[in-house]
């Protein structure tokens, strides 16, 4: 890698840093409960939750497992599952 003039950096390049490895818990959706309100997407600090068709799906390559989505979901449709290490 050659360094750039004045350390100027291209936009959006942290995508190479998959932060999924940070988490110990993973959000798991029960789509029966989910009413599609999108609160989980709004309050995800990593913006990893995105609508896929009519379902909200977390991008597990980047999800750090903070659990805000589960805590804020008005329908209790998301539970945090301990991931095997």
């Amino acid at each position, binding site marked *: 890698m050659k*360094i750039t*003039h*004045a*350390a*100027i*950096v*291209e*936009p959006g390049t942290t995508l190479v840093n998959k932060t999924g490895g940070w988490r110990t818990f993973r959000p798991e959706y029960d789509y029966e409960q989910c009413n599609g309100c999108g609160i989980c997407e709004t309050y995800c600090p990593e913006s990893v939750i995105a609508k896929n068709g009519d379902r909200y799906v977390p991008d597990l390559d980047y999800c750090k497992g903070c659990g805000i989505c589960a805590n804020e979901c008005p329908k209790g449709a998301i539970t945090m599952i301990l991931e095997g290490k």
Partner: protein
Amino acid sequence: MDRENMAVVDGAYAVAHAVKVCKPDVVAAYPITPQTNIVEHISHFIADGEMDDVSINVESEHSAMSLLVGAGSVGARAYSATASQGLVLMSEVLFNVSGMRLPIVMTVVNRAMSAPLSIWNDHQDSISQRDAGWIQLYAEDVQEAADMTAQAFRIAESRNVLLPVMVCMDGFILSHVYEPVVLLEDDLIDRFLRGYSPVAVLDPDDPKTFGAFADPNTYTEFRYLQEMAMRNAVPEIEDAASEFQEIFGRYQGGLIEEYMTEDAEILILAMGSVVGTIKEVIPGMRAKGVNVGLIKIRSFRPFPAEAIKKAVADAGVIVALDKNISIGLGEGALLTETKSIICNSSIQTPVIGFMLGHGGRDITEARIEQIIMETSEVMKRGITVESRYADLKEELL
């Protein structure tokens, strides 16, 4: 010099006028004696419509230079001016500007550092910032301070340099002196300055990130590229001076300027306005059979090591005059750095130094003559004192 194109003006006016002619997009400066006349003249140019409304009255020198970081990063040609305490208040930003490779030009109206407070001239301020990564040029007189401003933009903005430049002129001695100068010609400038085209700018249509942090894996290489840019400035400073001469007809040296150095046994190295006084003294000394010459150091950063070594090769003794002191080393920077470039070279010439003119103490012709005579003793009896004050008042101690 063509008298009919000359006008008798104060030094600050000549520099402010030069800034106007160079058409900066943004000017940000905070008032500090003895720089104030420069910013005032610029304000009047704007108020009278002679200059676009580019100037911002900021709340501190730190903010003046910070504002120019913003302006420079969107591609604006940026100018500031300061002195002493103001320069050192900016110090954090000076390093930042050089690291971000922003070609900002700033006049430093050299003034002593507090404490004790002093509004008078010496070089302690700009010398203390010599490692901030700015090119530092020193003007001998008002004409040079003005002409050097245009050359500073040219050097700073050349693509293989892209480093900020300080144009250093002695406070009061040059900033407040009235003397005849040729004001920078507005009709010629566009042949000399071809505009600043940055490598990248902050632009929503092409977003970039400026000012990321570098961990140990890359930091050194950024510093190295700054050093390479500074080395690229060496030929640029010479080219800027010679091309300026072609277009404007004036030349006062490139990296250095040699004055009556042919067959000189004693060579004086000096920077700033004292150069003029030395030029007055040399002919008289020569008439008395004292072979003395002067090397004006015009560029202190990049330090013109090769040019100096070439110029001093046959000297019997070298004496450096310093309006600054590195406390704890007991000598000025010009002496230290001259010794350092000579020590591994084939040059065996003894090098001594005198500190003088600190805090605005006047440097008389007699003082220069005294220095020359004491220096010539070295050729006979060798070095007794390598560095000392030439104008210390023992009676005050």
